[in-house]
Each structure stands twice: as structure tokens, then as C-alpha cells.
């Protein structure tokens, strides 16, 4: 195995020094390909397992320029690996196989392969792989540049839709830098710069996330890609990289949910019936949206489609009454960010939980659990609470969080990361009642609280859903939701300033196995949003590489999650939406 040391490619001698990761379970081929690539003056790293490959890729962000992988591998389907890489790292991937059947090749292309090579592979075929890297870079540059232009336009607008000017400005600076990088990129050098460009800290408000999910659903989870999403979202100041990293988190989140669902058979019995948890449709989020609409209803329009795939729409449903509660989200409602109506306890809004300052009211609802993820998702919380996931070995405490959410306290809670037991959320009176119940175990109380809480819980699709759907709570309660024994004390951190708000995701049972570490940071008072049905919650999904590994196959199966065990499919989708915070 050749270790390239993850050095940056030397732009001046491109394509020499191209950092290639080769994945093949056949040792003979691995040896041959390694030699061939070395002869092309590329830096080669070899792997015989897909899992190893993903770990390597994750360990060194920007450590590779391109991935070449065989289609048939023992631990993971090559196509799945391909999807993962495309989503998480957004690297060009070349597939290889001895089988050249058209349908297989087509599948490869559909999954995003930028090329499909037939074995035996000639060296000259490998010599040209740099073109895929170059092409991608060029497109990135173009994206950035076009965004730059748009950003200027955007900035001249009143920017009312941007709750945090801070982020806008920071974005601005970053954009400028990107532009510079992009330009140099055009010169054919400086590949390093582009890859190492600092991503702007974007605050994924509910509104933004909503757009994001909508775009994802529209495109179809299978075909989703940062650029496409970006185009659809039509948010000038957002960069492709922002979307890419958000997407990555989202996928992880969903896969985690999926895994949870799969492992936990007890399903909360969400009311949403329709969206079968496993929606193999693969349209991530598409299904959800469908569900959501079906379910919802009472609540207002659910702003954004809940991605089904991962999140089972936790349909807190059944609670029409609850819905009200949520729907009634105080006028404080917020703001634009909360555009999503809380469809009802369940609905998808969950995924969109974005704590928007505007929500002020929800403050303490959130308890954070810090979620350490290898992928840092810090979003500057300027005005908009950010939900940061840091993984901790803690089970999801979302439940707790949710319980607390309903409190609409305008204040911002600054919540620093929580590690382990999330701080009790005091502020909400309503929550307190729920406190106990909130944790998963408390299902019963949860139900009670439904009226109040449910709405709150909406935002946490995943977890909440489980808890929400009272029926299915058992499973959930057992798992994650319990906030480490704490009552529901979701403190909506008063100041959400710190970006790292961790929210414990107590995603119901399904997540239990997986996400010990998933902690969702609830930034800000978006808790309020939760009440609304999570629309405002912006969940940062989990960047939990371990999780990821655990569910590699699920990752893309996310779309077909069988959330049954956890809760109503419909609900789950809602939750997905809400919970995802990037």
C-alpha cells in the first residue's frame, strides 16, 4: 500500500502527484493498479475493503483527488461506496469491473460514477483519469464565480431573509477568497487551494434547510448532488461547498435513522401510514414529503418535505390537538425561518429544525448533547441558532430536548456544547412537566404532554417521532431519547451564540444502537420551532463516521428506511426533515 501521505497535489506538475485511492478486494488487481498508477506519477493509496476506503477518505478530508473502485466487493456494494463518496466527499469516482454489461455500466453512471472501466484495464486508461479531477475543479470554480455574482446582488437586497447578517458577511469574505482561488484554479494550478478553501460558516436556518430538503426531494435522492441542490435552492450566497457538506450531514443523519429503524423493530407506530419506512425509492425526502402532506394537515402547511428516507416521520400525529399546540406556536413565530407550519406534531418539519432566533420562544427546550463528529459542523450562530452535532456516546436525548422545546422564550440561550447529559432545560414550564416524560421512557407523559410537547417535538423528527407517537414509544424510550436520565430539561440555551449547540438526539429506538453519539445540538431558541413542528429546527445531522460505518449499506438505503419499527413512516419522514441540521 502506498501511502501518499495525503499531501497536497503539486499543482505545477499536474496531473503528476494526483492523489488516487484505489479500492479492490482482489489483491492481484490492487497490486497491478498500484503499479500502473505509480507509473503515471500519481500518488497511490490502496485499500481492499470499502469500509477502509471510506475511513481513509474521512480521516483526511481533501486527502485524495479521485477514487477508483471495483464494483464487486465483499463488505459493501461498490455502488454504495460510490454514492457515499459522492455525497460525503464529492470526489470523482471511477468504477471498475470485469462485467461490462450495459445495465451495470448504466447503474454506475446513475450512481454518479464519472467513468466505468472494464477489466483488464490498460495503463493508458488510467493515465487519463486526471481529466475527471480537472473537470470537477473547473465546475466548482464556475459555481463559485456565479455565486459570487449572485451574492453581490443578494447583498444589495434588504437581506431580510437572512437572519444573520453575520453569516452573510462571513460568507462574503469566504466568497471572495473562493473567487480568488477559483481564478487561480482556472490557471490550472492551485488545485490545492480550491480543495482547502475554507468553507464559509453557514447558518442553516430552518428556511434554508427547508429549501435544501425540498431541492433534494425534487432532484431525487439518487441523483442528488451539491451542485444540483444549489441550483434548485437558489440561494445566492450559498456555496456549493456549503451544500455539499450539508448534504453529507443530511445523508449521514438519514442513514443513521435508517439504521436505527432497522435495528429497532419496535416502531412507534406513527400515524403516518404512508410512507413506508423503507422507501427504496431512493428519493430521499421525496417520500417524506408525500407523507408529510398526507399526514399533516392539521397543522398548517408543512414547510418542507421531510425526507423520508431517514427520518421517519415521526408522526406525532394523532394529535390533532397537539398540532394545535404546535400550530399555535406563538406568534412569535418567527420568522421567516419558521415558515414551515407545523404540520402537526409529526411532520417533517422535524428535519427542519432550525432554531431561528425568531423563535425566541423556544429557548430552553433544547438540551444539547454534544455530538462529536469528525465532521465539524460548526455554524456560526449569528442570529440563528445552530445546531451542531457532536458525537458523544450518549444516546439521543432528543427526547429530552423535545420535551423542553415548547417553551417559547425569546431569549437566546447560549448553549455550549453539551457533553453527556444535556443540561436540563429549565425554562419551559411546560416542559418541566414533561420532563420526565420526555425521555423516552416517559412516553406516557409524553403523550400527555403531547398537547404541549408534541408540537415541540415535532422538530425532532427522528427522535421525537418515536416518542411522539406514543405508541411506538417503547422502543424509543428504551433507546435514545432518554436524556441520560435527565428529565426533560431542555434548556433552550439562552444564548445560542455558541455555535455548538448540541442537541441530544434521542432519536428513538432506532437510533439507539447507532447513535450513541448522536447528539444534536440545538442551537437556540429554535426550540420554539420545535413546537411548531420542528420546522424551525435545523438539525445538524450526525457526522458520525462510526455511525456511518455501521450503516454503510444503510446509507443509501436511507431512502428505503424501514422505519416501521420506529414509528410511522410518515412521521419519520417528518422527523427527518426536522432533525437534520447541517
Amino acid at each position: 500500500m502506498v501511502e501518499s501521505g495525503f499531501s497536497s497535489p503539486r499543482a505545477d506538475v499536474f496531473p503528476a502527484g494526483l492523489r488516487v485511492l484505489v479500492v479492490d478486494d482482489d489483491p492481484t488487481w490492487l497490486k497491478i493498479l498500484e503499479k500502473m498508477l505509480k507509473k503515471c506519477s500519481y500518488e497511490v493509496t490502496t485499500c481492499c475493503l470499502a469500509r477502509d476506503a471510506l475511513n481513509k477518505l474521512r480521516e483526511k478530508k481533501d486527502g485524495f483527488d479521485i477514487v477508483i473502485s471495483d464494483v464487486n466487493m465483499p463488505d459493501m456494494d461498490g455502488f454504495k461506496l460510490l454514492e457515499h463518496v459522492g455525497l460525503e466527499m464529492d470526489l470523482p469516482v471511477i468504477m471498475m469491473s470485469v462485467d461490462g454489461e450495459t445495465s451495470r455500466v448504466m447503474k454506475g453512471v446513475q450512481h454518479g460514477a464519472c467513468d466505468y472501466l472494464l477489466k483488464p484495464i490498460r495503463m493508458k486508461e488510467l493515465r487519463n483519469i486526471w481529466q475527471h479531477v480537472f473537470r470537477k475543479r473547473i465546475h466548482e470554480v464556475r459555481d463559485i464565480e456565479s455565486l459570487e455574482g449572485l451574492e453581490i446582488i443578494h447583498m444589495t437586497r434588504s437581506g431580510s431573509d437572512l437572519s444573520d447578517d453575520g453569516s452573510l458577511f462571513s460568507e462574503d469574505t469566504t466568497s471572495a477568497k473562493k473567487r480568488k482561488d477559483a481564478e487561480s484554479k482556472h490557471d490550472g494550478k492551485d488545485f490545492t487551494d480550491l480543495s482547502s478553501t475554507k468553507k464559509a460558516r453557514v447558518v442553516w436556518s430552518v428556511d434554508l434547510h427547508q429549501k435544501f430538503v425540498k431541492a433534494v426531494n425534487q432532484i431525487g435522492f439518487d441523483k442528488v448532488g451539491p451542485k444540483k441542490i444549489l441550483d434548485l435552492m437558489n440561494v445566492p450566497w450559498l456555496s456549493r461547498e456549503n451544500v455539499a457538506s450539508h448534504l453529507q450531514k443530511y445523508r449521514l443523519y438519514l442513514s443513521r435513522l435508517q439504521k436505527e429503524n432497522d435495528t429497532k423493530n419496535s416502531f412507534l407506530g406513527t400515524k403516518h401510514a404512508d410512507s413506508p419506512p423503507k422507501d427504496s425509492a431512493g428519493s430521499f425526502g421525496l417520500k417524506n414529503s408525500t407523507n408529510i402532506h398526507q399526514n399533516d394537515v392539521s397543522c398548517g402547511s408543512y414547510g418542507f418535505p421531510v425526507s423520508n428516507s431517514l427520518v421517519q416521520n415521526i408522526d406525532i400525529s394523532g394529535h390533532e390537538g397537539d398540532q394545535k399546540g404546535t400550530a399555535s406556536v406563538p406568534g412569535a413565530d418567527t420568522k421567516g425561518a419558521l415558515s414551515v407550519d407545523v404540520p402537526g406534531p409529526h411532520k417533517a418539519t422535524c428535519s427542519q429544525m432550525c432554531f431561528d432566533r425568531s423563535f425566541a420562544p423556544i429557548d430552553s427546550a433544547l438540551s444539547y448533547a454534544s455530538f462529536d463528529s469528525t465532521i465539524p459542523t460548526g455554524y456560526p450562530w449569528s442570529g440563528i441558532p445552530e445546531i451542531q452535532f457532536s458525537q458523544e456516546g450518549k444516546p439521543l436525548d432528543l427526547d429530552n430536548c423535545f420535551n423542553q422545546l415548547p417553551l417559547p422564550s425569546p431569549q437566546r440561550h447560549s448553549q455550549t456544547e453539551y457533553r453527556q447529559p444535556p443540561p436540563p432545560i429549565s425554562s419551559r414550564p411546560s416542559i418541566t412537566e414533561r420532563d420526565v416524560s420526555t425521555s423516552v421512557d416517559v412516553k406516557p407523559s409524553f403523550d400527555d404532554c403531547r398537547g404541549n410537547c408534541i408540537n415541540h417535538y415535532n422538530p425532532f423528527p427522528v427522535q421525537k417521532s418515536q416518542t411522539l407517537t406514543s405508541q411506538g414509544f417503547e422502543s424509543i424510550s428504551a433507546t435514545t431519547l432518554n436524556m441520560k436520565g435527565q428529565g426533560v430539561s431542555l434548556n433552550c440555551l439562552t444564548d445560542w451564540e455558541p455555535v455548538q449547540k448540541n442537541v441530544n438526539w434521542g432519536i428513538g429506538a432506532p437510533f439507539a444502537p447507532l447513535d450513541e453519539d448522536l447528539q444534536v445540538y440545538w442551537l437556540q431558541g429554535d426550540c420554539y420551532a420545535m413546537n411548531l413542528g420542528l420546522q424551525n429546527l435545523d438539525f445538524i445531522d450526525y457526522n458520525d463516521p462510526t455511525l456511518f460505518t455501521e450503516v454503510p449499506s444503510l446509507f443509501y438505503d436511507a431512502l428505503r428506511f424501514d422505519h416501521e419499527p420506529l414509528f410511522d413512516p410518515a412521521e419519520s419522514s417528518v422527523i427527518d426533515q426536522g432533525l437534520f441540521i447541517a
Partner: protein
Amino acid sequence: MSQELQAPGIRHMFSRAYFCLPHAHRNHLQQQVASMRRSLFDQGYLDEQFIQLEELQDDANPDFVEEVVTLFYSDSARLIQSIEQALTSRPINFARLDDYMHQFKGSSSSIGAKKVRTACTPFGEYCSEENAEGCIRAFQQIKQEYATLKRKLETYFQMVK
């Protein structure tokens, strides 16, 4: 000459003594090697992939071709075993068999084992037809080609050294 080559002692002596041989003898040896190599291609045992391997051989990896072939044979041995086992189990799991065969085919393509790879095709067909008899027969053929090539390559590499 070939007799001498096969006798271990002589062969051993031969390789070390190669450079001590008069030019004519060395030439002769080279010719032997060349003609054997040619026949391997002519008779369809090897294909262009083998040449690719030869082209990859350089000062950094002077025994590259032999290393790859050795790696192939040791790695594919376990595949062969897996296939054997799958063929003797009842009922036969054809899907798994097909999987193994696919891997084996991919592997043998790596060294340019043409006849071996070709023999995999009927096996694949019988597999999809779920024809156990056919699979067993086809596999016998594969094993034969596999063993024949192994012998020839061993000889060849001895000569080359």
C-alpha cells in the same frame, strides 16, 4: 537443453552460471525464453494483459510479472476451493457460485490468463441455468487450464531468471 533445465541441480547451476556462459549459449537461452513466451501467446494461454505486466516491470520492480503471477495463484487457490465446496454442497447455491466465478474471472483477467478466463464463460452459463452437471464439468475444464498455465509459467520464469 530443456532436460537440463528441468533438473533442479542443473537448473540452479544454470541460472548462476548464465553469465559465465559464452555469448552463443546465452543467446541460445534467450531464444528459448523468447520462443516459449511466443508460444504461450500463440497458443492462447496468455493475452495482451500479460504484456501490460511486462511493461510495468522496471528497475523498481524487476520481478514484477512473476510477483503478480505468484500472487494470483496463491489468492485464487482459495477461490478454487470455495467453488469446489459450493459445488459439493447440496443444494447448490448457484448465486454464490456465480459470485465466485465472477471474482475468479476478474482475477484471471489480471494476469492475462486467456484460456482460463475463456473457460469461465460456459461455467457462468451453466450457473445461470442452474445446471449442476454442467457447472461441475465446466469447472473441471477451468481447473485444467488453470493448472496447465501454472506449470508453463513456472517453467517460463525459471528460464527467465
